């Protein structure tokens, strides 16, 4: 355990306070720019998520950090050292892969000790580190099993242990929960936060699942077409999305688009397929411009027709209730408005008075949605 103290001391001595720093990293595959001028700093002890749809370049970026892919341009610093030209085995990283990628011919113990063996650490040292990490992931007693004798969750723990055992400067995680079922995923989410808090090694976590990113991380970078749309604290991203893409990607949204008819104070009025809607005015938008408006389903309310009691300034529209999906603490209500458009509202279940086919009032505060200039696509 003295070594651990020494390791931490050694880390503090290093000049940079960042565990990971990317400077203007680029990667081109043929005509496709998979990673486009990305800069990023991840601090020690941070749980950082790279969130994006498939094809957004997040996995490529992770592979560049790991050294499995070369950076076309730019630099990668890990633990304050420039490792841009280092091969993966000379970067001091740990990694957890999507399919775990445990070595099938090695036991759990051999799998976990692999990074230590590669470092040519002495046997006693290896044993020490191994027992520490087995304790951490609660896998004591499984050392002699083979990977094919483990359940999915146990494999996940072994993969994490292997990633952490050498106390890397940074742990990279590539969609590690994607292949687990829902129950196990919830359990592992809790566990991972615990490991991370206990050991102070920064996690860089790649996922396409916004829920996972929001649950696990402190900070999130939303990626699209190889660049960062927004980097920031997760609540900041959720409550103040900087771009239309971030607004649409996080949360369950109603997307409304239309042309600006007129403007009053900070608000614009748009024509949404025959309904005039009041929305906050995005920067630099004039009457005649097209805009997109994203409205989170949980920011809306639904009531039987005529029984709504909206807050001041709310918009209320009448609609027909098409379907209700019961989710436990809340329900998703699908309604059809007068202009034949559909909306989804998440609100408390009300079996008594909300019936499918019945008339309802839908209400929300215009300022609770996010509006952006429409970029032509949708």
């Amino acid at each position: 355990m003295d070594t651990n103290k020494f390791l931490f001391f050694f880390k503090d001595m290093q000049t940079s306070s960042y565990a990971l720093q990317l400077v203007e990293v680029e990667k081109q595959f043929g005509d496709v720019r998979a990673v486009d001028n990305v800069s990023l700093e991840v601090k020690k002890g941070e749980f950082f998520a790279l969130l994006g749809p498939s094809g957004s370049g997040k996995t490529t970026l992770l592979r560049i950090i790991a050294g499995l892919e070369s950076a076309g341009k730019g630099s990668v610093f890990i633990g304050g050292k420039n490792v841009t030209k280092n091969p993966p085995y000379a970067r001091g990283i740990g990694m957890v892969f999507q399919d775990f990628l445990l070595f099938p011919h090695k036991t759990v113990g051999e799998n976990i000790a692999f990074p230590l063996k590669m470092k040519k650490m002495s046997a006693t040292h290896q044993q020490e580190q191994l027992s520490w990490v087995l304790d951490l992931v609660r896998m004591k007693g499984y050392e002699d099993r083979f990977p094919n004798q483990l359940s999915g969750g146990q494999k996940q723990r072994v993969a994490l242990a292997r990633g952490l055992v050498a106390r890397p400067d940074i742990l990279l995680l590539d969609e590690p929960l994607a292949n687990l079922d829902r129950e196990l995923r919830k359990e592992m989410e809790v566990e991972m936060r615990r490991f991370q808090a206990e050991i102070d090694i920064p996690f860089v976590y790649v996922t396409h699942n916004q829920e996972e990113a929001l649950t696990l991380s402190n900070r999130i970078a939303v990626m699209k077409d190889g660049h960062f749309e927004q980097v920031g604290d997760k609540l900041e991203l959720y409550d103040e999305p900087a771009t239309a893409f971030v607004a649409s990607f996080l949360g369950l949204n109603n997307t409304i688009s239309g042309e600006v008819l007129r403007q009053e104070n900070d608000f614009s009025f748009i024509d949404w397929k025959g309904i005039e809607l009041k929305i906050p005015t995005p920067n630099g938008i004039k009457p005649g411009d097209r805009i997109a408006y994203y409205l989170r389903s949980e920011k809306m309310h639904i009531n039987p027709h005529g029984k709504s009691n909206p807050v001041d300034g709310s918009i209320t529209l009448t609609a027909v209730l098409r379907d209700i999906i019961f989710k436990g603490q809340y329900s998703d209500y699908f309604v059809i408005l007068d202009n034949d458009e559909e909306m989804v509202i998440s609100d408390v279940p009300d079996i008594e008075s909300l019936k499918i086919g019945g008339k309802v009032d839908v209400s929300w505060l215009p300022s609770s949605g996010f509006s952006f200039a429409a970029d032509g696509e949708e």
Partner: protein
Amino acid sequence: MAVKQFLHSKDLKALALSLPGALFIIFFLFIPLATIVVYSFWRTESYTMIADWNLNNYLTILTTKTYLTFLFRSLSMSLAVSFISLIYSWPVAYYIAKYGGRYRLILTMLTAAPFFTGILLRVTAMQQILGPIGVVNMFLSNIGLKPLHLLMYSHYATGLGLIYLWIPFMVLAIYLSLLTFDFKLLDAAMINGASPLRAFWEVTLPLNWIGTCIGLALVFIPTFAATITPKFLGGVNGALYGNILAHQFGSTGTWALGSAMGVLMFTISSLFVFIVFKTVNLNRSGYTGKIAGE
């Protein structure tokens, strides 16, 4: 820590590893094959090749009735052997792949194993079974029946011997194809109203057609070039095209003519493979070109 440029292009690494063997094959197989194409346009005089470009060798083959007869005989033999092997191998490979369970591997290895004991010794073994003093006819005469002339140094005996030699290839090719076939697709077909036979035609066969074609090629090609089997099982009049080809390289020393025969053999084999694979429609074959991990 050595900091050096680590990543090169993937093409380069793939080529560095695969080029040596490829060059070996090109240099020691394709170039020799190309030389017999050259020699087929030369002539031989008292055991030396003379570079006197002409088409006489081909004219000789195509105008000599005996050569044409041998060619036709070999072609019919190969087609028959391939076709019979195909028909027989399908149910066998199908059974192993579908119902073999944990015995799948041993059942397949058992069909493939005889192939490794060598052509000559297998033909020797077959000779002990067929033929006038083979155990079948000896048995018949021992119990007072007339011997089966069909099996005595005849084309039928040759055909049976060739099936004996090459059917493992067909079973193996179809079996390997079936290994990657999802049998649940048949349930889907039958639930949607297809009879078992119909499901086979509509689903199983098309999705395993490439494997079947490979099997056909692997049986046809060595059968068309057979020399040993007809020599020992076919009897006096049993010679096939391969035998007269081999003959040119023996005592007669007519290498140029033999080369032309070889070129013709290769051309016909290639044509057969080409025609067979013409029937493959990659979009309908279930082929993805993907390999595990991609």
